[in-house]
């Protein structure tokens, strides 16, 4: 808790020790504006001070990586002069305090990260997690977040083509709202966040600066929640998608005309970040004139101007002879623009306000001298107790279990969500929401980009290292079944309070798991985000790393595999290792048994690589490929039946194996004798046909009931029933 009687640095979220090191760095007391800048730049959210040392573990290199972690977005080479830019970010805390604006500004922020690189944003994916929908508060948060994503994404004109949904009590006090964005660009349009050389002019583009979002990164995003968190509402920014749309078009025109040296978006830490980071990267200093900043309220102080997180703003670094041309483009798109700074030789960031120098510090020090913590780690002692109690077997009727799973809001149809999102704009969405990976074509080429985003808090709670590795393999298999080869990962690491050794251990283990799996597949991590302090009243969320996998299909299979292409008489095959009956961490364990015990099945790196390669190969000839994940084989087959409007008969398989989520498996459906399967484990498990789904000796389920149960899982809960 903070009070007005505390020293200023504590109120700004800076510890006494960090304040001491700032005094040592400057050799004097910081001025108020300087303290404001350091407090946000040294926040957990901006500086990654608890995670930085661990993130170095990630493999980040591959011949196709053009820009790795550290810039606004990762960039990879698609061949033939095309590049893709991608980034993922969280807006967890703002979305709990104000769900609509929190989610909306999360979308706005991730778009800016991508078009800052010179790319046109072409698609968004949202990964959202809430507490159970029987609690009205969770329904309010869920509805608000979906509305915010729709309200901003639809209006800004970037399609939301997929994502992920999960419900678990651990997210009741702390929902997770992650968003990933993909952009494409021609190689010559790539722009970096550099301030350029002395004489370069800094032009602030976009919305006027106000008092919204002050301390968003430090006071809100880098602290835990308690009963007084609702008082932090003024720290949430307010978004305006119309301003963002104009800003996107104006920036793309600036890039196309070659008018900028570098660009940096104004997100967390606002002007403090957008001046110091580009100057630091370029090894130059910069003079900033706060009186030139266009504002929408009077009387703002220098610290407020420097910390404001007002949305829809961009800093362009421009050669002095091109300033008029840049201002003309801004004027055409009806956005405000102001010359607010000039790059200087040396390394000093000098800020003036009301004619006085209010800050004079080494530009690079705001980022480079940030504290770095080696926080203590401890393996949680409850982990062995969980592992000592293997998951119970399910003795219910398989058909009943299947219907209960399809009625679960995390496994049922996502139509209630994705039909509120424009997921078709730009005419590129070959495979949209509701399936495995999304498939987005690159027009004018034979290429398509596949993306899958995957997280699983329960798996990672039971085994953070193996769980995180399995996410990478699952995401890779999801893009593989669309015909794409996995090529790059971005990750969003959502964790509890890093000051607790158990949370820090979970974090380290997850980073290790992601790294190992990425190394196995030869896929680099090109960017990411860390969200700590996801705890409310001392209770941490499950460790929830989310992996966003980008794959390239070149050429794209036409037509690509689709669940709806299953027809009467086709055979159903399960490709990959035969599953165990271990249900630890599975959806069946959660929904049917309501417990969380046991140790999930470990991934098999060699098998993962082989199965993924098989899927990529088969995607060019097999009409239906479907990853086996949440709900296991039974739910996978049911999803095919629902999408294709046809029944199926499945062999008499052990109930545990029907609902097992053991990794590295997918379903292939094809007419008998039409496909030669590559070497590797595979078994024929059934046949497509009829108007019922029959699981072995279990009672057949009518297709209508299957479809209706699946369709109503979310709507019936949102209706309060």
């Amino acid at each position: 808790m903070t009070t007005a009687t505390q020293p200023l640095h504590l109120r700004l979220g800076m510890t006494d020790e960090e304040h001491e090191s700032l005094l040592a760095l400057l050799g004097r007391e910081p001025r108020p504006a300087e303290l404001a800048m350091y407090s946000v730049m040294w926040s957990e959210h901006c500086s990654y001070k608890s995670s930085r040392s661990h993130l170095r573990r990630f493999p980040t290199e591959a011949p196709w990586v053009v820009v790795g972690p550290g810039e606004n977005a990762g960039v990879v080479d698609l061949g033939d002069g095309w590049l893709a830019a991608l980034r993922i970010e969280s807006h967890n805390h703002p979305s709990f305090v104000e769900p609509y604006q929190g989610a909306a500004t999360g979308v706005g922020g991730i778009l800016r990260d991508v078009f800052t690189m010179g790319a046109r944003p072409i698609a968004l994916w949202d990964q959202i997690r809430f507490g159970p929908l029987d609690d009205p508060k969770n329904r309010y948060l869920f509805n608000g977040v979906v509305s915010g994503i729709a309200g901003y994404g639809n209006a800004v004109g970037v399609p939301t083509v997929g994502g992920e949904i999960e419900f678990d009590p651990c997210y009741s006090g702390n929902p997770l709202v992650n968003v990933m964005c993909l952009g494409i660009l021609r190689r010559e349009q790539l722009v970096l966040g550099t301030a350029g050389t002395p004489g370069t002019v800094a032009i602030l583009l976009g919305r006027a600066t106000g008092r919204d979002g002050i301390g968003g990164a430090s006071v809100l995003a880098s602290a835990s929640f308690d009963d007084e968190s609702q008082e932090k509402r003024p720290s949430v920014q307010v978004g305006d998608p119309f301003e963002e749309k104009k800003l996107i078009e104006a920036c793309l025109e600036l890039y196309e005309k070659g008018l900028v040296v570098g660009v940096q978006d104004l997100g967390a830490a606002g002007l403090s970040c957008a001046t110091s980071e580009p100057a630091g990267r370029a090894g130059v200093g910069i003079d900033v004139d706060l009186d030139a900043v266009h504002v929408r309220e009077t009387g703002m102080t220098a610290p407020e101007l420097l910390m404001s997180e007002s949305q829809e703003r961009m800093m362009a670094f421009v050669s002095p002879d091109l300033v008029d041309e840049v201002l003309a483009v801004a004027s055409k798109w009806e956005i405000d623009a102001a010359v607010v700074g000039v790059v200087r030789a040396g390394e000093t960031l000098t800020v003036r306000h009301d004619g006085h120098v209010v800050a004079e510090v080494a530009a690079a020090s705001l980022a480079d001298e940030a504290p770095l913590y080696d926080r203590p780690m401890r393996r949680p002692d409850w982990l062995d107790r969980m592992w000592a109690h293997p998951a119970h077997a399910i003795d219910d009727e398989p058909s009943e279990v299947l219907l209960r799973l399809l009625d679960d809001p995390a496994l049922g149809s996502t139509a209630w969500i994705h039909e509120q999102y424009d997921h078709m704009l730009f005419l590129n969405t070959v495979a949209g929401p509701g399936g495995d990976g999304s498939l987005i074509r690159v027009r004018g080429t034979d290429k398509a980009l596949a993306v899958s985003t995957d997280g699983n808090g329960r798996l990672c709670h039971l085994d953070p290292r193996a769980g995180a590795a399995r996410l990478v393999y699952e995401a890779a298999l999801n893009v593989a079944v669309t015909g794409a080869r996995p090529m790059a990962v971005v990750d969003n690491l959502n964790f509890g309070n890093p000051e607790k050794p158990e949370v820090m251990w979970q974090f380290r283990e997850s980073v290790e798991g992601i790294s190992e799996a990425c190394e196995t597949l030869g896929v680099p991590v090109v960017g990411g985000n860390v969200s700590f302090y996801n705890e409310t009243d001392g209770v941490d969320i499950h460790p929830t790393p989310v992996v966003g996998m980008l794959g390239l299909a070149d050429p794209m299979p036409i037509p690509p595999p689709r669940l709806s292409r299953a027809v009467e008489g086709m055979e159903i095959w399960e490709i990959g290792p035969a599953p165990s009956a271990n249900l630890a961490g599975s959806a069946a364990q959660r929904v049917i048994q309501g417990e969380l015990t046991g140790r999930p099945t470990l991934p098999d790196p060699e098998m993962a690589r082989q199965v993924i390669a098989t899927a990529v190969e088969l995607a060019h000839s097999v009409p239906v490929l479907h990853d086996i994940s949440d709900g296991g084989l039974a739910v996978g087959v049911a999803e095919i039946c629902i999408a294709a409007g046809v029944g199926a008969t499945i062999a008499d398989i052990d109930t545990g194996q029907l609902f097992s989520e053991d990794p590295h498996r997918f379903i292939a459906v094809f007419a008998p004798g039409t496909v030669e399967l590559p070497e590797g484990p595979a078994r024929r498990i059934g046949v497509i046909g009829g108007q019922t789904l029959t699981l072995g000796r279990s009672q057949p389920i009518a297709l209508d009931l299957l479809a209706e149960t699946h369709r109503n899982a979310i709507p019936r809960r949102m209706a309060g029933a």
Partner: protein
Amino acid sequence: MRTAVVVFPGTNCEHDVVHALTVLGGEAELVWHRETDLSGFDGVVLPGGFAHGDYLRTGAIARFSPVMSEIERMAGQGRPVLGICNGFQILCEAGLLPGALIANRDLAFICRFVDLEVTDTDTVLTRTAEVGQRVRIPLNSYEGSWVDPSNTGRVALRYVDDPNGSQQAAAAISNDEGNVVGIMPHPERGVDELLGSGDGRALLEGFLHSLVPA
């Protein structure tokens, strides 16, 4: 034959419309909303999006954009004028089509394929179609429910299963002359089977066939 595709700040379907018309053999060009001379064009499309942020009310600000007087002139001269989604809302606000678009019956944004039935072939959008012909194209709107207290709008296409509460289940309407048409679903999103449907071609081909030299 050249078609102007008007871009307001906030418009977002302009490139899709140009792509669809081009694929069908038409010639389409983007025109900024401040343009005051469309004399080189034979027809005009107002694409979907959020013109001027849809502030105040959908289409309410766009109707005052400089380009609108040229669109009124072309409409009056019998040239094909097509408003899609937000463009439909703008044409209603501008008084070139009767009625108005209000929030969907269920107060939620709807983005999905819908089935339509052609009810009138005497319009620039439906002239190459047949009465009773079914087309399946995507709907993508929040203010998509058409109401017309004047009861003067001619329904060109209706929803087979009305998703948003439109009067007469209207999905597309025209003026008396049939040269000004507003459609709420997106024909330009239905020109490629790979994306789910090629049914929009029948409508946009009708529009292209309606163009005659200026």
